[in-house]
């Protein structure tokens, strides 16, 4: 048996000794050794058992992943409460690809996708519509409650669950998310502990209007990196109650802070659950202050590089929805695009526009807002549940002039960032 430091129960020791089989032994070894590195004292039960996994793409280079999944499937080892997944990398119906792109996607980049999805279903994937980075939205159903312990990965989902829902989860890597879900146990360290949920930064928002969520999150992430920020002055714009609109805002702000920095938890004064309960008691002594005003937001925005090969090219594709759009945002983009086209006396958008959203959110949108859905398609806007990041992770796509309002997508691809109002102007002028 391995040497380990943390305290384990008799049942946990039995698994580590191999009494429940070799595969579970290796899973337990991995989780225990990982926890020991971060001085976890013990393993604690996952209280919201439905997991969320980040590795949704069957990229052939990850062969140990497929071998491990096969081992799990062969022994019928499953996640205790099932799991949802990040979005699929491909959707040829709604995000068209040319012949060459399809060859690269099907044969090289995502050649194992079909086999991998079959492995996932056997290991506990909730259902075939469970592919979205926004598993926590009401329509998607994998929504923890305050105080729940999670075994999730996907940085944008983790920061949302911690901050907006008040759940507890570390920024896990792929595979560790699944192992925690199988054991129903995670090492207790980091954001699972009260002392690490206190803020070492105070962010003072002093802008003249509501800041663009994606730029505010980026500014915060770039400044605080992995620390916890306590944000003041945002409740003036967002109010003091979480609703569909504020959830959408905080989703985008959090994703930007997690990808431009490594934020796993933020507090918004008078709004997010722990800030409402504890107020300034959440701020650590000696916390640093970062003031964000109009000039600072503009400075951060202007710092984003333009990675397009032809710097002033006409955009070929516009990707909106990384992280996936909420139902509120789908409706808002519909209203904004249609009214702007009408104002400009135009019938179609200027380039291909793809709105990305979770399959279950898209189904709701189709069911309850069919006219809006059809109208978007008529003007040249398609709706997909693809992962824009995975789609753009292709050398053939690198040369395309892609625009986005996502700071996460900007960070991991060659796509160029524009503010919402600029995107609207560029696609409808």
């Amino acid at each position, binding site marked *: 048996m391995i040497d380990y430091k943390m305290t384990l129960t008799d049942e946990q020791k039995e698994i580590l000794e191999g009494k429940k089989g070799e595969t579970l032994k290796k899973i337990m070894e991995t989780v225990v050794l*990982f926890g020991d590195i971060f001085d976890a004292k013990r393993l604690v039960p996952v209280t919201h058992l439905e997991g969320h996994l980040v590795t949704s793409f069957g990229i052939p280079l990850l062969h140990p992943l497929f071998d491990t999944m096969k081992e799990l499937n062969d022994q019928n080892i499953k996640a205790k409460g099932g799991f949802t997944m990040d979005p699929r990398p491909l959707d040829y119906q709604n995000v068209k690809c040319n012949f060459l792109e399809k060859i690269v996607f099907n044969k090289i980049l995502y050649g194992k996708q079909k086999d991998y999805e079959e492995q996932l279903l056997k290991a506990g994937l909730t259902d075939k519509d469970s592919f979205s980075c926004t598993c926590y939205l009401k329509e998607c159903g994998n929504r923890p409650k305050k105080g729940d312990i999670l075994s999730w990965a996907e940085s944008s989902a983790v920061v949302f669950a911690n901050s907006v829902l008040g759940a507890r989860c570390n920024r896990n890597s*792929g*595979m560790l998310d699944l192992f925690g879900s199988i054991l129903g146990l995670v090492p207790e360290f980091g954001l699972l502990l009260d002392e690490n949920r206190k803020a070492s930064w105070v962010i003072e928002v002093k802008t003249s209007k509501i800041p663009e969520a994606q730029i505010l999150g980026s500014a915060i992430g770039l400044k605080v990196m992995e620390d916890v920020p306590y944000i003041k002055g945002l409740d003036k714009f967002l109010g003091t109650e979480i609703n569909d609109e504020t959830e959408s805002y905080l989703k985008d702000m959090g994703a930007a802070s997690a990808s431009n920095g490594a934020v796993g938890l933020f507090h918004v004064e008078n709004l997010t659950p722990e800030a409402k309960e504890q107020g300034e008691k959440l701020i650590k002594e000696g916390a640093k202050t970062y003031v964000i005003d109009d000039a600072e937001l503009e400075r951060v925005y202007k710092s984003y590089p333009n990675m397009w090969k032809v710097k002033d090219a006409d955009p070929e594709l516009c990707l909106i929805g990384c992280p996936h759009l909420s139902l509120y945002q789908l409706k808002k983009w519909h209203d904004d695009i249609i009214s702007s086209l009408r104002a400009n006396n135009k019938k179609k958008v200027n380039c291909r526009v793809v709105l990305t959203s979770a399959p279950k959110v898209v189904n709701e949108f189709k069911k309850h807002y069919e006219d809006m859905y059809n109208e978007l398609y008529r003007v040249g806007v398609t709706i997909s549940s693809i992962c824009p990041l995975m789609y753009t992770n292709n050398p053939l796509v690198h040369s395309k002039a892609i625009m986005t309002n996502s700071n996460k997508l900007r960070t991991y691809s060659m796509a160029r960032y524009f503010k919402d109002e600029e995107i609207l102007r560029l696609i409808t002028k």
Partner: protein
Amino acid sequence: MSESKVFKGRVIAKGNFKGEAVVSHEGFNTLASFQKSALLNKKNVIVSDQNNKDLYGKDITNKILCLPITIGSTTGGLVIQTVCNMKINPRVFLFSMPIDSLAASGIVLAKVWQNSDVICVDNLGEEFLNTVKTGDTLEVKEDGTVTIL
């Protein structure tokens, strides 16, 4: 001849090795760096992260990778496990900072599931990264001692 410099860190995966240093002063983007060589099934990793000014285009297989932390996609752990499985990994990872959770999971996955002989030491300090240079010969001991020869 210059004097040897000795640093002491925390052992994450123990082992003894003497070899050539390759140094990244900025966060090492695991997926971006390893992706191309692993996808094309190469026998050596040539760093493919264009944003890494120190290591872009350099061969890091069987070398001693010196870095602050890893950054990038949360698949990072799986990617480390993968290159260890292919045996094209840097033989040693030396972190100047406390290891990040993605790299930590990668090292643990490689040890437990691939029985890899990868070596890893963290917390070597900022001075280590400021001192070590690509091409230096390093000696890593199983107690976490690193000597720049």
